[in-house]
């Protein structure tokens, strides 16, 4: 009896596998595609080699003054010499360990918040503690720490402080306004809608002007606010309106049955919200919230216009230094890289979350 023996499967023809097939399908599938491929390669050829030359090959790395920047490329000596000013602003050098410690604590808080296994109570506690600890540590005046005025804070440190305080403080305010907007109580609802739409309808810069010029008029003489605190008030109130809208999106995504079931269990309004509705709504809203945090992080650069020295304005100021004139390209590129890294990491995180939460069957 003949036994049928399974023959080994043949591989697809050479033209349909490996790199050749990939190139054929993805780059050369039609005359138009061939044209586009050539066009893109040409664009890359125009952009990449001069950039590599400027960034690395012709760049100057060694030395400590502008005179030693003899190559045609970037003068990275400038960045290296001014690095501390870009990061800490005018924060006194002997106290910079406090700034480092604060930034380290910030990184730790972010790490705790991102890791899934950490219990929620620890996450929330560490996030809420961060602004308080940061401000005590940075300004000092307690525990034998020297007092450092906020006008000495600057650079990346200031950018991070503004972003962190803005994100953390706007969160509870935003939740209150979101609940207010969804509330059945007409007065509370009207006030919330009015606030949210007012803030979302105007540019941040007008809010910052309001906070820096008009706010002092609102309070009695002698009750003087620090410039930084005024900016923080403006940014927090602005961000709260956007957080509120994101959370409202989450609230609307919760099925009615959840509201009804929690009511049927006899929970009070605040218990219903705290234990049943908000945990679900915030989870749905996280990708959008991260999106609005990215916007906030980019928007912190606007404090430059009201005269604070964040990273961008510190670098702009330094490029006007008489010993280092004509290096604004290097300065702006440095700022761009720092902003880009932070924002890119945040947007990656939000995309991953979206994928994790998305159960929709889409192409």
């Amino acid at each position, binding site marked *: 009896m003949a036994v049928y023996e399974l023959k080994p499967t043949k591989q697809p023809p050479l033209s349909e596998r490996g790199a050749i097939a990939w190139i054929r399908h*993805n*780059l050369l*599938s039609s005359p138009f*595609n061939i044209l*586009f*491929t050539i066009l*893109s*390669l040409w*664009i*890359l050829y125009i952009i990449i080699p001069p950039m590599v030359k400027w960034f690395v090959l012709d760049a100057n790395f060694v030395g400590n003054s502008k005179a030693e920047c003899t190559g045609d490329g970037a003068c990275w000596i400038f960045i290296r010499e001014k690095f501390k000013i870009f990061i800490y602003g005018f924060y006194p050098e002997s106290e910079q360990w406090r700034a480092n410690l604060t930034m380290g604590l910030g990184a730790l808080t972010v790490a705790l918040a991102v890791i899934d296994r950490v219990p929620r109570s620890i996450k929330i506690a560490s996030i809420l503690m961060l602004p308080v600890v940061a401000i005590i540590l940075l300004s000092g005046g307690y525990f034998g720490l020297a007092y450092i005025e906020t006008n000495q804070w600057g650079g990346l440190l200031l950018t991070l402080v503004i972003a962190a305080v803005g994100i953390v403080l706007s969160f509870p305010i935003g939740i209150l306004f979101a609940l207010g907007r969804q509330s*059945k*109580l*007409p*007065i*509370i609802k009207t*006030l919330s809608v009015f606030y949210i*739409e*007012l803030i*979302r*309808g*105007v*540019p*941040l*810069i*007008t809010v910052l*002007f*309001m906070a820096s*010029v*008009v706010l*002092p*008029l*609102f*309070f*009695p*003489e002698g009750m003087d606010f620090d410039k930084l605190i005024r900016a923080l008030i403006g940014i927090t109130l602005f961000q709260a309106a956007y957080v509120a809208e994101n959370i409202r999106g989450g609230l609307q995504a919760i099925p009615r049955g959840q509201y009804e079931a929690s009511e049927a269990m006899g929970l*009070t*309004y605040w218990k219903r919200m705290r234990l049943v509705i908000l945990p679900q709504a915030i989870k749905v809203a996280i990708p959008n919230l991260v999106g609005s945090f*990215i916007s906030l992080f*980019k*928007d912190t*650069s*606007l404090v*430059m*216009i009201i005269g604070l020295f964040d990273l*961008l304005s510190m670098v*702009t100021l330094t*490029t006007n230094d008489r010993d280092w004139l004509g290096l*604004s*390209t290097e300065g*702006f590129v440095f*700022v*761009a890289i720092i*902003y*880009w890294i932070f*924002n*890119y990491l945040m*947007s990656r995180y939000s995309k991953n979350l979206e994928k994790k939460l998305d159960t929709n*069957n*889409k*192409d």
Partner: protein
Amino acid sequence: MSFLRNEKVRGILYQLITIVGFVLFIMYIAQNTSDNIEARGIKSGLDFMQSTAGFDITETPLEFNHTSTHWDVFKVGLANTLIVSAFGIVLATILGLIIGVARLSSNWIISRLANGYIEIFRNLPILLQILFWYNVVLASMPSVRQSYNFFGSIFINQRGVYTPRPIFEDGSWLIAAGFIIALLAGWLIYKWSTKRHDETGQEFPVFLVNLGLLITLPILAYLIAGSPVSFEYPVFKGFNFQGGRTFTPEFLALLFALTIYTATFIAEAVRSGIEAVNKGQKEAATSLGLTPTQSLKFVVLPQAVRIAIPPIINQYLNLAKNSSLAAAIGYPELVTVFAGTSLNITGQALEIIGITMLTYLVISLFVSAILNWFNKKMKIKER
């Protein structure tokens, strides 16, 4: 005290507390403000709008001179805001559509390039981009004498871009009339062809016919009226270019940054709109025997547009709001001249910031009204 446990009673109580707290807060602020204003000797009220501003503005689409009032400053600022926003919206839409479609291209290298563009420019603060264009790119342009020269009609140098300016002579109205007639005819053709398509299923090349009308009718009118349009070219005289149209570096830096930044968001909206159309819809279209073009035209795009347009309109609004960052480079729009210079001269912060905010708010409300109208019109009508 059991009635305090009633949610209705509690609701009323909460609202009472809120309203009383709110009113007290407002009264407190109002009292302090009036005290402070008196103590500092600042005037109040809107009389300052009628007083002479006494400064010059570099770009004035409306008439403006040293005798103009703060009300004129406001009008010029608003006009400049609207001008740069209009230019920005048109350019950002074109660029965004191109990038968004390129992002979905089957060509790997094109879609990677588009993705790179989006990821780079979306993640950089717009203020940084404005400053970069202004301080690095445009400042590195040659001096006036060494201007880049394109065909002897367009000049680029440190002081901006000089282009020819069209001059409309008598009879130019015929061109506008031709354009309007083409628009009307296009609308009628669209109505007629949709109706015929609904009744008989016959198709009509609406887009091509309308495009042809839009191009030929104004040209025809131009020829009939005897070529009434001429161009005034910029000419180098003395120390600078005279005549023609000038685009200042401030305007260009702002326009480029707004366009490039907003285009990334428009591209993302286009992409997510097309991707959001359910896979089953495309499969169903194919199984009905529609060609890929027909499936795109009748099945995918109508659904994608419904999803993509609202975020795109929101981006237009963001662009208009972001134009306020011109304050950093001194393009004379609303925030720079009115909330900046006028405020410094008069010192009436409360009124000026209030008016500025109100203006943006009106623009926003106008845009949301358009958005609501669109959403209502586009709502899926279920039978």
